């Protein structure tokens, strides 16, 4: 009974939190949906319903999309390599000092969002897709490193130990004893992150890190709604396409 009362109290608190949030932000939903601003928004939105499909713009978008794809793919690849490198100590293979150090590093890499990394890297490496790629790689290596470390921890050690007993070195024992068991899972994790990174890569341009995002930012700043609409459509196609592709790849290679 008291638990039930507690739940009701909790729901009440949540409700109050919602009301307080609206109050704090001073959002007047009525004014937002009122006649004048709504018609203004309508005019703004109507600009998006006539996407610019002229060939030069489409060609530019195609290049931007390829750039976005390349950024996300290369960033994820770099992240997978760096993540694996950090996952080995984080799975406790080189003693507890390396374990705690690498875990701290992984958490720090993961905790800072991609966009913040991008803003930082743009400061260091200048504008352009290179900064976006590096930013994606930094954040993703934190995420993948942690997932990889968990995978490695849950992998039986006997096959690698058997190779060691046959006289093989540490690297060889890892490649022959551990990698065959874990690689499908590593690939699956990387594919999942790639899906995510495509979305991120298409918006990193907002802070100047290349790809479709940079074009969209420019278009919107110049009030070119028609061009922006085509860009958003392109992003949508890209995201849905990659979702389908990586879903297929996962089924083909991972669950088999």
């Amino acid at each position: 009974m008291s638990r039930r009362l507690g739940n009701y109290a909790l729901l009440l608190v949540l409700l109050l939190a919602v009301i307080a949030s609206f109050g704090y932000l001073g959002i007047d939903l009525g004014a937002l949906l009122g006649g004048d601003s709504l018609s203004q928004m309508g005019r703004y939105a109507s600009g998006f319903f006539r996407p610019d499909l002229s060939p030069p713009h489409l060609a530019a978008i195609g290049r931007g999309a390829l750039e976005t794809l390349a950024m996300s793919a290369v960033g994820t690849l770099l992240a997978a390599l760096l993540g694996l490198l950090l996952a080995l100590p984080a799975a406790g293979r080189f003693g507890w000092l390396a374990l705690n150090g690498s875990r701290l590093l992984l958490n720090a890499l993961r905790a800072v969002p991609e966009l913040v990394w991008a803003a930082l890297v743009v400061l260091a490496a200048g504008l352009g897709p290179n900064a976006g790629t590096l930013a994606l790689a930094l954040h993703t290596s934190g995420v993948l490193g942690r997932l990889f470390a968990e995978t490695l921890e849950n992998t039986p050690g006997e096959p690698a130990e058997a190779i060691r007993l046959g006289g093989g070195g540490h690297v060889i024992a890892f490649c022959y004893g551990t990698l065959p068991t874990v690689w499908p899972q590593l690939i699956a994790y990387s594919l999942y992150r790639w899906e995510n990174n495509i979305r991120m890569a298409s918006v990193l341009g907002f802070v100047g890190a290349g790809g479709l995002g940079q074009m969209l930012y420019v278009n919107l700043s110049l009030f070119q709604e028609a061009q922006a609409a085509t860009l958003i459509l392109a992003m949508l196609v890209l995201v849905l396409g990659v979702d389908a592709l990586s879903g297929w790849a996962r089924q083909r290679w991972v669950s088999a």
Partner: protein
Amino acid sequence: MSISLNGVGLIHANGQVALSAIDLRVRPGERVAIIGPSGAGKTSLLRLLATSLRPSAGQLDLLGQQPWQLGARQRQQLRARIGLIHQAPPLPPRQRVVTAVLAGKLGQWSLGKSLLNLLHPLDMHGAQATLSRLDLAEKLFERCDQLSGGQLQRVGIARVLYQAAELILADEPVSAMDPVLAGHTLSVLNQEAAARGITLLASLHAVELALAHFPRIIGLREGRIVFDLPPEAISTGALDALYANEQLQPLPASPAAAPVTIQIPRC
């Protein structure tokens, strides 16, 4: 001496005494079977000889060297000359048989060759020849998780045959095979040992197989050597005493492929 143990004892990390005061000498080219009830210490003895476990007392000589006095690199070189056949071969489920067999030579190959071999098997004929001695040649390109327990055991044996070790240690190498196949496999191992003049040490649960295939039998019980005789000198009474009050234990199952589970926080 191929193997020489002087008063060797082994205490597991949990304090359980596995072996005590073992004295054993095996000359090069000898073929020895170790028999005894479950929990007698057969596996511990073999793992000790394979330098997988470190003795807590006594002196251990393998192929004329003391493995625990050596540096890490020299110990790895010594290990490359010793082949251990596991009861349930620890093979990665997704590895192909050809790679699993060729992995026997990893201790002798350079790093580059080993890594290249992972991408493309470098000695398919060698692997196939070894497998065909065990009637498994047609499984060359299958994946290990598609094999039965007995087939997996034979892949493990093929790996050690391919390794061309100077000392073969076999821990229940035929436990998952039917009697005919078990006999055949043991004679392959014995032929190999006799042909190349190498030492073979095998622990066996089936006493008849041990008596039929090996010229020297060691009885192990509660971590001590009870007898060390040629098969014709072993009486029924000695066997009964060796196996008195044995509790049957189920065989450990071969490692199954773990299902791939993916859980990702998506934000």
